[in-house]
């Protein structure tokens, strides 16, 4: 997992290594500083010449400057390395997601992808920074300090050896105990936030039922629970500070007690006041290092969850890729299904589509009707290879769809999705998704065909009207027509509308279909609809039921042959179904 992740460091390896180099240098200097200060202290005490004091002082200043330079450079490069690593991770994930097929996309919810690319990456960035700054430095400083302590204090340094394992184990135990407690709390915390979100989103429901006080009471219970759980976890962690203090105090007392006796009994030979103060400094350093190490342990364990979630995205294998020697030309808009069966995942025990055989000639208008779960959408999604068939094959223009270059295939098979999206930007920007180089005339033409031109021109800004995120400032019917225009701009050989006019009134719907007939006669049109009126004039209507083709025929034929079709037709013409609002909405 780590290897996969660190693969994204790339060009930031250099600042990473520079950081490590300077950190090591800084650590060495920092451990030397107390050593030299000890000399300084001793020489002051012995009443040495001012010149000696000054020269030792200058040496120290020089070292401080070096240490500052090293620390400064390392601080800079490590920021660059970690921010760059995060940037690469985000780019890699984004690129990866772009290569996802529909099957891959279905696996991750969009909100989870957002969290992975933001919060999770931020966590990894922080721990990477911690690791390169302290993971090398702390053990190094620890070892240096202990060595120096022995050099200066001799056997007195055994006080350190006694304290280190006690503190190390103590810190580890605290971290070990606190971790699961924290994980539990975080889970509850997520739930709390979810319920807040429900209340924000459902404010009208809460108020409509006068449930404000009830919700406050419910919130209070879970918030209290989180408070007490969190407190418990933090109180475990809060043992770190006293533990540290205890060890520092112990070392200080031992050094002062034994050190002073030593200094007296040896008469200052080899062990003196300077050594005492140096040992005190080293003691501090050792403890800081251990503290840092325990922090690293906590941070790494905390971010390991994030690492796992990032790797899940990076490790995902796109289920659909370009063939080795792809075909770049689509001959015509004919479509053939040969014994096609399909299931969404290999483990699924039920086929979503079974044994589909179909022949659609180029330029035909084909309607598809069927209830929810009858796999209408599934059927058409196989044509532009949004999913691959499980068994059988699909030919477009006489060639298996799996042999085409993906961009070529999808450029020629335009699909207007059921759950469609506009993106923030102008109407023009959105339309140009269909064809980046489209001229204004082409845009207008496509919009006329999709019956969108008229309402666009009523906007003060016309084609330059800004669409808000999610397309919230246009009505459902307007959004659908813009999406159709966007698809038309591709000049596709096959046009698939997946329930794309459900919010458009029947008259406009008919005008759109009429336009298709007269302006793009050679394009194969496949229309999935809930309304019989949307498909009844098609050359061929497919009635789907439970993943199978129930009947194929024209409107008149199906009224005789298909019970399902007849039922739907009767239900709709009896007037219980027709969508009224949009009629009012779109009428002039």
């Amino acid at each position, binding site marked *: 997992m780590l290897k996969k992740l660190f693969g994204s460091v790339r060009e930031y390896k250099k600042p990473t290594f520079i950081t490590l180099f300077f950190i090591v240098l*800084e650590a060495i200097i920092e451990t030397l500083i107390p050593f030299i*200060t000890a000399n*300084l*202290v001793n*020489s*002051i005490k012995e009443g*040495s010449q*001012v010149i000696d*004091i*000054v020269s030792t002082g200058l040496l*120290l200043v020089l070292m*401080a400057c070096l240490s*500052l330079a090293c*620390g400064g450079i390392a*601080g800079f490069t490590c920021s*660059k390395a970690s921010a*760059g690593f995060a940037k690469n991770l*985000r780019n890699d994930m*984004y690129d990866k997601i*772009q290569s*996802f097929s529909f099957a891959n996309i279905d696996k991750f919810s969009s*909100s989870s*992808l957002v969290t992975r690319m933001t919060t999770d990456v931020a966590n990894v960035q922080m721990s990477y920074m911690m690791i390169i700054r302290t993971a090398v430095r702390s053990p190094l400083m620890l070892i240096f300090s202990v060595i120096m302590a022995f050099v200066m204090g001799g056997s007195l340094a055994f006080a350190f050896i006694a304290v280190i394992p006690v503190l190390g184990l103590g810190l580890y135990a605290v971290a070990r105990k606190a971790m699961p407690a924290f994980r539990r709390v975080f889970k509850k915390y997520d739930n709390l936030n979810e319920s*807040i979100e429900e*209340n924000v989103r459902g404010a*009208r429901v809460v108020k409509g*039922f006068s*449930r404000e006080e*009830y919700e*406050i009471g419910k919130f209070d219970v879970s918030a209290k629970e989180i*408070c007490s759980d*969190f407190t418990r976890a933090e*109180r475990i962690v809060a*043992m770190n500070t*006293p533990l540290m203090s205890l060890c520092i105090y112990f070392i200080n*007392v031992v050094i002062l*007690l034994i050190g*002073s*006796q030593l*200094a*007296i*009994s040896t008469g200052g030979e080899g062990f003196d*006041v300077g050594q005492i103060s140096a040992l005190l400094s080293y003691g501090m350093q050792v403890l800081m290092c251990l503290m840092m190490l325990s922090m690293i342990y906590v941070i790494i364990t905390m971010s390991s969850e994030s690492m796992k979630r990032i790797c899940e995205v990076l490790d995902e294998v796109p289920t659909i890729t370009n063939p080795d020697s792809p075909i770049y030309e689509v001959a015509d808009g004919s479509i053939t299904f040969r014994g096609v069966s399909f299931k969404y995942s290999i483990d699924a025990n039920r086929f979503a589509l079974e044994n589909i055989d179909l022949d659609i000639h180029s330029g035909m208008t084909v309607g598809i009707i069927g209830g*929810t779960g009858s796999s209408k959408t599934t059927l058409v999604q196989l044509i532009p290879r949004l999913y691959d068939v499980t068994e059988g094959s699909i030919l477009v223009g006489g060639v298996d769809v799996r042999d085409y270059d993906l961009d070529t295939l999808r450029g020629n098979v335009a699909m207007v*999705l059921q759950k469609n999206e506009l*993106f923030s930007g102008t109407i023009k920007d959105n339309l140009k998704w269909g064809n*980046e180089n489209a001229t204004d005339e082409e845009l207008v033409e496509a919009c006329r065909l999709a019956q969108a031109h008229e309402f666009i021109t009523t906007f003060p800004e016309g084609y330059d009207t800004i669409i808000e*995120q999610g397309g*919230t400032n246009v*009505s*459902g019917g307007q959004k659908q027509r813009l999406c159709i225009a966007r698809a038309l701009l*591709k000049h596709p050989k096959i046009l698939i509308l997946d329930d794309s006019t*459900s*919010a458009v009134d029947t008259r406009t719907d008919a005008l759109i279909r009429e336009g298709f007939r007269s302006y793009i006669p050679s394009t194969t049109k496949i229309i999935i609809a809930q309304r019989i009126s949307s498909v009844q004039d098609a050359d061929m209507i497919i009635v789907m039921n439970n993943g199978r083709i129930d009947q194929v025929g024209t409107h008149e034929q199906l009224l005789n042959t298909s019970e399902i079709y007849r039922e739907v037709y009767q239900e709709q013409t009896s007037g*219980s*179904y027709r969508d*009224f*609002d949009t009629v*009012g*909405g779109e009428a002039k």
Partner: protein
Amino acid sequence: MSKQPPKAMPNGAPSRKPPMDLKALGRLVKLLFTYYPVLIPLIIVCILFSAGAAAIPDIFIQKVIAIVAKYQPTMDLAGATAELVPQILFLVGAYAISLVAVVVQAQLSAIVTQGFLYKMRKDMFARMQRLPVRYFDTHKHGDIMSTYTNDIDTIRQLVSQSLPTAIRTLSVVVFVLCVMLYYSVWMTLVILAGVLVMSVVSKKIGGGSAKYFMRQQQSMGKTEGYVQEMMNGQKVVKVFSHEGKSAREFKAINEELFDDAYKAHAYANTLGPIIMNIGNILYVIVAVAGGLFLTLGAPNLSISGLAFEISIIVPFLNMTKQFTGNINQLSQQINSVVMALAGANRVFDLIDQQPETDDGYVTLVNVEVDEEGNIVETDKRSNIWAWKHPHQDGTLTYTLVRGDVRLVDVDFGYREDKTVLHGVSVYAEPGQKVAFVGATGAGKTTITNLINRFYDIADGKIRYDGININKIKKDDLRRSLGIVLQDTNLFSGSVMDNIRYGRLDATDQECIEASILVGADDFITRLPNGYDTLLSNNGANLSQGQRQLIAIARAAVADPPVMILDEATSSIDTHTEAIVQRGMDKLMEGRTVFVIAHRLSTVKNSDVIMVLEKGRIIERGSHDDLIEKKGKYYQLYTGAFELE
């Protein structure tokens, strides 16, 4: 979401601009003291104790070294030990006190921090629940959520880390300063000069760091927004083979984020080494100055009256380290303080929002009607409701709830300068169905928003059973009005919990009966755990039609005399559609109903149809009346059918 008033409102407009405001800090501290009048001072005392204990050892070190210097020439160990032991014991005593203080402080801090956050959250949530619908319509939901998550988190940092660190470091500095002055004024001045340099540098670099941290937050938001939009539309991206372009756009935004993040951390990361090494240099300066004073035999100026000696200089060197370390710690908190203040501002902004006002005094009560036709209030659930109306002259009248709702000449605008409803009058007699028909934005939803007082009218009047709805307590008014919205909102919990949401004291049996009535029971019993099936994420595991059925059952349990229905427009298949429709029809039986109609059958079966255009009712009447009139409605109706 489709039916919300325009986002940009004068008083709403989400502004996440962080003003540097020390008032927020003051208010936070004041709140801390109000919530924890005992614990907070106790914590401060503990911090002071441990800070003191951190300074005291320097005095002992000085004494110990003085003893060493005294006995070293004679190597009189016994004499030295006799003097040493009491000193060391004192030290151990001081340490013990400090240890106790540290333990108490750390434990109390954990309690106070979490408790404080709990209280903040509770205050926020309680205030939020009491805000008018306008607040939710004019603030981005993501921004509101971020107040609960990110902003609260910055406050956690402040309370648990930054504030204690500030108190501790500042008090250590003061203690140490006193000890310094006790030994030598001259040396103290040397150190203070160094500290001055450090604080100037901290301010400069820390300020830069804070600036870039803010920028980083902004670019993070921008990146998040872009990713969110693209992830939602990922399938469209695939269909249009737009992957390459979308990746290029992302790289540009990502690069900006990198730039800000890199700078923010670079400032923060270099600050530490700079302060520490200024400290090292200061150490040397102090040592050299001390050495000079010592060798030159300069006269000392001090509180203690001690002359320059090695036993003064060594602790001074230690104190220099302490000073530096503490200032370094303080400077590391600058970022979190700045972010916490911005966060606290947003939290207070939410808490300070004006809650929904309610001057209503007419309440909804259960009553019984005795043989003589007198209305008597009762505690039992009698299924007969009445408005309890206290009058100014002290009399009390009861009016039976019938469901007669009248809007007379109502004007309304979401903004004062833009009226969206003009002179709307609607009369609904008990049991009547009133259908609203018209284009998106014609004002259908707006009218229903006024009836349950999600918004208040600008002009005109609304009467419920003859009572001005402004006189009715909002809770009671809304309890008497059921709503089924276009967008179904369910809550985490079981299916049963969600149905019971309509009436909290409903028994399981009543909930199941309501489900059976509206035709939801069939699919619920087929769920893996039936009525106990847990829903999360707004019922993501259910189909749209199923969610609607639960919402209808929820309204049925409430059993209100008046219903407001907003039919869903989104297409669900004919079969489910028919079930939902039947459920709706059941729900409408025997009630006054306002329905924003999308289905012809609903419109046809209504007693009165209101055709709305641009905030005005342009036609009204029954289906047959309107057809006969051959006006707008007729055009809509026939125009649609001609084409089939």
